[in-house]
């Protein structure tokens, strides 16, 4: 194709631009109104906020420098946090895999089962992790066990949501091939779905491991073991420098795990 058609004498009429939506200004006004209503409702006041920074300043100066001598008392809870996260990630992600497969229309064509699984998953995710910790602490006892149970439910929610959405987006071709070969649903999912989402699954598991380390600080506040429980006792006695030490350690742990998981993910994909 070397010869091109001769150019038309005048320019061809350009299509008219679609009219701007009249809803844009309405939406903007609504956002401003909602912000005003919310700020007014809770007494959010910027002047007040700046004034109270002075008080925060006192706490910060008491917290600095972190009490490095406190480290040896944190080692055991730190290890406990790590151990809780390991168990919760393994069990939670183990249960999360079939839960996620049941929650995607690609890997689960059974509508009633799909609906039940998705509903249960929605309820599991609707309850915050600290609420689970509260429930399990009062049902069982204070310590790492209720914390682990809370984290397991939390992980099922995370994996179920993220992985089922990943399954929704996979290539359905291999599923058709495995089905055509006479494979049962279970085996079709094992060989046509799992290999396609495996790198994502591992990435999500590492991510939820990281979330577990962080969550342990929060759920520990209600007595569910780990560093959070230590943080709570130090908070009660106003040892800000000890608290800062715990926060520094949590930060270091999360950063190290993040680095390891980035490295692992790069090798996997």
């Amino acid at each position, binding site marked *: 194709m070397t010869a091109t058609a001769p150019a038309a004498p005048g320019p061809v009429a350009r299509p008219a631009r679609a009219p701007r939506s009249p809803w844009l200004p309405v939406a903007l006004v609504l956002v401003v109104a909602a912000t005003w209503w919310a700020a007014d409702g809770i007494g959010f006041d910027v002047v007040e906020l700046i004034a109270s920074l002075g008080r925060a300043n006192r706490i910060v100066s008491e917290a600095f420098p972190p009490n490095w001598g406190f480290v040896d008392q944190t080692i055991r809870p730190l290890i406990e946090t790590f151990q809780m996260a390991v168990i919760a990630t393994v069990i939670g992600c183990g249960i999360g895999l079939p839960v996620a497969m049941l929650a995607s229309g690609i890997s689960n064509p059974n509508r009633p089962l799909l609906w039940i699984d998705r509903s249960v998953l929605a309820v599991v995710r609707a309850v915050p992790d600290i609420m689970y910790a509260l429930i399990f602490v009062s049902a069982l006892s204070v310590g790492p066990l209720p914390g682990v149970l809370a984290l397991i439910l939390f992980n099922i929610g995370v994996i179920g949501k993220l992985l089922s959405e990943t399954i929704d987006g996979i*290539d359905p*071709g*291999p599923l*058709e*091939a*495995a*089905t*055509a*070969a*006479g*494979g*049962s649903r*279970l*085996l*079709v999912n*094992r*060989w*046509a779905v799992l*290999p*396609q989402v*495996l*790198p994502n699954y591992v990435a999500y598991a590492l991510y939820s491991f990281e979330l577990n380390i962080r969550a342990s600080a929060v759920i520990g506040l209600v007595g569910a073991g780990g560093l959070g429980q230590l943080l709570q006792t130090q908070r009660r006695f106003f040892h800000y420098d000890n608290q800062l030490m715990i926060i520094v350690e949590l930060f270091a742990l999360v950063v190290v795990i993040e680095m390891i998981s980035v490295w692992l993910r790069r090798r996997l994909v």
Partner: protein
Amino acid sequence: MIRLERASVTYPGGVQALRELTLEIPDGQMLVIVGLSGAGKSTLIRAINGLVPLTGGDLTIDGRSVVRASTRELREIRSKIGMIFQTFNLVRRTSVLNNVLMGRLHDAGTLRSLLGAYRAEDVELAMRALERVGIVDKAYVRASNLSGGQQQRVGIARALAQEPKIILADEPVASLDPPTSHVVMRDLQRINRELGITTIVNLHFLDLARRYGDRMIGMRGGELVYDGTGEAADEQVFRDIYGRSLTADDVLEAQAAV
């Protein structure tokens, strides 16, 4: 023998893809189906292994109805029908061997397949299937690292690993270049002749259909408009199938020349 009696498929949207089609396909035949896209070729192929359920009429394979089969019976029927796809439908992330072993899912046992602990016989069957299409050396290569033609051969090996009585091929060469198309079609023809596997192929290009089919059927609007040999199909037959005269777009060699 595959037998369709007044087989109809109406999709939920109301599209009638098959209209009371009656057809007999004897064992060992190489049947080529031609027609425009939307003529019902893919529906016909998928009705044979029950991937698309009939909404009317009956379809039997060796006397067993695919329409009335239970889920378990359907799996058993499917295990003897290999299928080859236009886009290969391989799991690209996993090894060639794992893809071919998918053909053994029905017979390998649930626990064994679940753990990937296949019996040596199953692995050997998969290797022999790869040998037949000439790429056994690629068994442990990731499927995504193969060329299109090689990927389609993995698809054929996956079907062969089922030790099928029937092979269904849905536009198997539509994603391949002309020389590779001939290689794949020759593979299918050889398998049909040497193993006596009934082979049903949807094709877009008429020259391929005439060259490789023992028998050619033409479809248009869900109905059979031609049934005979490729050589006997004249200009009038093409008009019946395509609703117009034959053009360069309908033959692979002409496409290759462009």
